[in-house]
């Protein structure tokens, strides 16, 4: 009965358990709202008949004063062709455009994350290339960990932490 061009969607194909599993914690409320909205659409569809319901014209034939009237009605009812509603505002196309845009964005984000993961992995591997502590001289240690070296040109004061040095923000003893 529906035109062949449009595919009829009668139920949701969304895997909601997977959706909930991958949903970030701070977006669970949004997920719940989306699910509720979606469920109203599905319920509305399910409340209504899928095809044109049958009418028992035979029983009407005996009850009607004019039996030909039932026949006429039957012929007309069976010939009835109901058009599938047209998406006048072109919403579907808009949604598709929005989706493809979003997909691009997600793709870009994913590559960024992948790069960051790769960096972290390479850093982990690099940590393993360091020689053992017993095999390092003091000089080597200073080369490997330059920030631990005390620069005589910039002496530090007790207790030798960054926040307690003159010039550090919030340092209370001298300017």
């Amino acid at each position, binding site marked *: 009965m529906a035109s062949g061009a449009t595919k009829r969607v009668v139920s*949701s194909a969304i895997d909601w358990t997977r*959706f909930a599993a991958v949903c970030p914690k701070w977006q669970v409320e949004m997920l719940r709202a989306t699910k509720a909205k979606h469920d109203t659409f599905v319920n509305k569809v399910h409340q*209504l008949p899928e095809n044109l319901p049958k009418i028992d014209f035979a029983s009407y034939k005996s009850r009607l004063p004019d039996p030909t009237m039932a026949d006429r009605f039957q012929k007309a009812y069976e010939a*009835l062709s109901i058009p599938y509603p047209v*998406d006048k505002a072109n919403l579907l196309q808009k949604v598709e455009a929005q989706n493809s845009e979003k997909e691009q964005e997600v793709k870009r984000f*994913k590559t960024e994350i992948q790069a960051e993961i790769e960096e972290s992995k390479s*850093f982990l591997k690099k940590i393993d290339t360091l020689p053992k502590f017993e095999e390092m001289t003091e000089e080597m240690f200073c080369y490997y960990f330059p920030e*631990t070296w005390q620069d005589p040109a910039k002496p530090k004061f007790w207790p030798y932490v960054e926040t307690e040095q003159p010039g550090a923000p919030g340092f209370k003893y001298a300017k």
Partner: protein
Amino acid sequence: MLSAFRTGALRSIVQGHGTFKVLSVVPARNASAPSKQDRIDTWDYVNSVYFGPERDMKNFPHPTQPAQHEPVRMGVLPASWFEFFYPKTGVTGPYVFLGGMTLWMMSKEIMVVDHYFWEFPAFWAMVYWVSTSPKMGPKLKQYISDKIEMRKNILYERPLAKMRDAEEKNISNLQRLLEECETASFVNQAKKEGVELQLEAAYRQRLNTAFQEVKKRLDYEVEITNVKRKFEQDHMVNWIVSSVTKSITPQQEKESIQSCIQTLKQLASKQTAAA
């Protein structure tokens, strides 16, 4: 140090290049918190210097600090010295050499017996006593090795473990984030399906309306005939009943009441006889 290193001063010294070659290439950084990339760069470079292909590992092996000293005798003297004497002089050789050497040094006044002479044997006697004492030796050894272990922990093990943990946590967080990216596809699907489902609902609403309207008309026709028939029937019944009641005369009514009373009386007499 880092800034000096990056600016090339140290690099040029290590590599023997001309001075300050890369001075302007890499800007000096905040020495307190090097970034991950900085660390990787630094370590790559230092590794290439200490363990690179140009390093002559065969003739100048990398120095390592052994965890334990080599075996000793008499508390402080390396056992290898004694081993050196055994094939040439037998087991008494090293002691004879030690005594002979001392005597020779004293006779030549290289070692002078003055007021400070006894400091030397006294010091080494103390070292011997402490290191071989079953009470003090192991304790001292434990104390010193604990100190070394602690220093290693603070300077090396703990910061590296912290870096490793941070990276692993970072990786697991990012992988979760990758997984969470799937939500976008679900949301897209939900949006699309929302539109399609609403279209479907509208279509079904139309079907339902058509069905209801046709059915309503048919039911209306049926109902009209039903009502007509019922009205005719009711009218007929009313007409017959009213004409019958009209045909009953007062005489007939009286007779019927009399007959009823008679019957009641008969019933009562039967009841008393039975009692």
